[in-house]
């Protein structure tokens, strides 16, 4: 579903026309499908988390049995697991993600509300940067196919997907943050995001995506440049620049649309590293802390949030792709 551009599904041609093409039935079907998807994810995460050894209240000091029993009761952990699962689902459907078991002063919803703006801003900026730079590099490489420029762009792209973010992050922070002092080495300025504070994390997060986008764009652009309609346009005597920017590049960018889904997943998981390396207060860090602290509701909250985002972006990408590409039809 996520990667519609793969030729793994037979496609019928259909009539063009953007508005009339909005696939209402298909979208509704996909929305319906996202319900079992989310349910499966929630179920798996719930029981995995409970299968982990340890519990949220185990700590350096042993509590008195009475205190422990009271804690278990207050967290609902004394009920049978399947009942807890039912309770959780019921509450989650109503938007109540429960209290955080570790953060005694805040609920999971509050924590997510604090962290999400940071994660989203950085993720969106990284996505924008990846599409802009990656797309541009891809076009350049495609136009100068097999030239030095092509090879260097593709070499860079290779490096981009081969160097882990937790290596690039600290190095960028050290060079541009500490040595050169151009950007913040880490942290936000008392919760305020600014170009100065988030540029390095955004760049670190975007680098692998830039690499992937540029490779996608290059491959797709090469195909488009060979296609009949570009030849036709050339035959009609349109200027090269016009052909390139009005016809070829937009058509070639099509596969990028269906990449938005996987890219979202990549950015979200990447944010875990970025937040740790740059000391940013985002949602990804909650997940790690929650998993280590056995803060069941916090882990579940983040999983639901991220899975929801991934499902939503996959859906949007698929529908947008269908609208934009006349070759796709929705079975």
């Amino acid at each position: 579903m996520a990667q519609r551009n793969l030729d793994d599904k037979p496609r019928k041609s259909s009539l063009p026309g953007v508005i009339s093409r909005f696939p209402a039935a298909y979208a509704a079907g996909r929305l319906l499908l996202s319900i079992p998807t989310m349910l499966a994810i929630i179920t798996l995460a719930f029981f995995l988390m409970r299968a982990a050894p340890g519990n949220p209240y185990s700590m350096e000091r042993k509590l008195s049995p009475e205190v422990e029993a009271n804690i278990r009761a207050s967290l609902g952990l004394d009920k049978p697991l399947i009942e807890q699962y039912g309770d959780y689902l019921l509450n989650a459907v109503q938007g109540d993600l429960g209290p955080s078991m570790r953060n005694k002063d805040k609920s999971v919803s509050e924590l997510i509300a604090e962290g999400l703006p940071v994660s989203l801003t950085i993720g969106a900026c990284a996505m924008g940067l990846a599409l802009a730079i990656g797309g541009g590099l891809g076009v350049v490489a495609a136009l100068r196919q097999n030239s030095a420029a092509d090879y260097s762009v593709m070499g860079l792209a290779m490096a981009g997907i081969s160097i882990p973010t937790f290596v690039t992050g600290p190095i960028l922070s050290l060079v541009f943050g500490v040595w050169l002092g151009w950007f913040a080495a880490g942290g936000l300025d008392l919760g305020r995001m600014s170009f100065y504070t988030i540029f390095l994390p955004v760049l670190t997060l975007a680098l692998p995506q830039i690499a992937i986008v540029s490779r996608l764009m290059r491959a797709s652009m090469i195909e488009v440049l060979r296609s009949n309609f570009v030849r036709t346009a050339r035959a009609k005597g349109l200027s090269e620049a016009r052909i390139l920017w009005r016809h070829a590049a937009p058509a070639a960018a099509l596969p990028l649309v269906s990449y938005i889904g996987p890219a979202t997943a990549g950015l979200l998981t990447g944010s875990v590293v970025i937040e740790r390396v740059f000391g940013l207060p985002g949602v990804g860090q909650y997940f790690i802390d929650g998993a280590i602290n056995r803060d069941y509701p916090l882990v579940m909250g983040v999983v639901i949030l991220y899975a929801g985002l991934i499902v939503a972006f996959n859906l949007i990408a698929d529908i947008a792709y269908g609208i934009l590409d006349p070759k796709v039809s929705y079975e």
Partner: protein
Amino acid sequence: MNVTAPDLGGSRAMSRAAEEGRSLWDDARARLMRNKAAVTSVWLLGGLVIIAVFGPMVWPHNYDAIYRDRVAISPTFENFHILGTDMLGRDLAVRLMVGLRVSLAVGVIATCVSLVIGVAWGATAGYLGGRVDQIMMRIVDVIYAMPFIFFVILLTVVFGQNIFLIFLAIGAVEWLTMARIVRGQTLTLRQREFVEAARASGVPPVKIVTRHIVPNLLGPVAVYVTLTLPVVILAESFLSFLGLGVNEPLTSLGLLISEGRENMSKLWLLLAPALTMVSALLALNFIGDGLRDAIDPRDR
């Protein structure tokens, strides 16, 4: 960190190669041989594998031997610490070899698991088609939406950080794209004359799948395998970075990098594993690309 390998149009190329039959393989090999980056990568990777497998056996130092008077010394030929020693006075070169061995092993195990599940699942769905195919691919769609790395972290928490169990688990969630590619291929293959002929002459379905379908999937699967390996290796290093990876005194490239990152003033501790890792990943990616281009030359 993407846990799912980016599919960069490989399946498209593959399907064409498969459709046009085996005669293409000779051409493909010739094209691969002309691809300098890929050929260099094959040699480089071969060298790395040999070093990883045999290096620790012949090296004068043991990977867990601690030299208490030689802590964190920079690379030197004295006592043959050509890459220096780490913060515990252990020879970095041999630890690097062991780390490379672990990382590669982990990559291979997880990829094999994903290969087996993916091929079985995809071939079954594609060959049977119809409702079964629908259901099986819907299941793939559902799992596809999971935030993978999160589940991998949860699995490490559950399995108490036993690295090989973890990588069985990574393999078990890494097969989705493989299944999709294989299914697509199978769908086309089963319309082909030789399959039709086999079916007409009463060959049982299991035999058709194993004899006729699976061998013809080799191309796309090979490409996807080379592209999955680096992704799995990256996933392992990511876990090590979070402190959830391999157990001491064993090590992996990811763990070595994360240790090196902690000691930026002793750059060789970071550079040696980082460069090794990047070159192994680059080699794998170049080979994967080269293979794809060789089988479908249109993009180059």
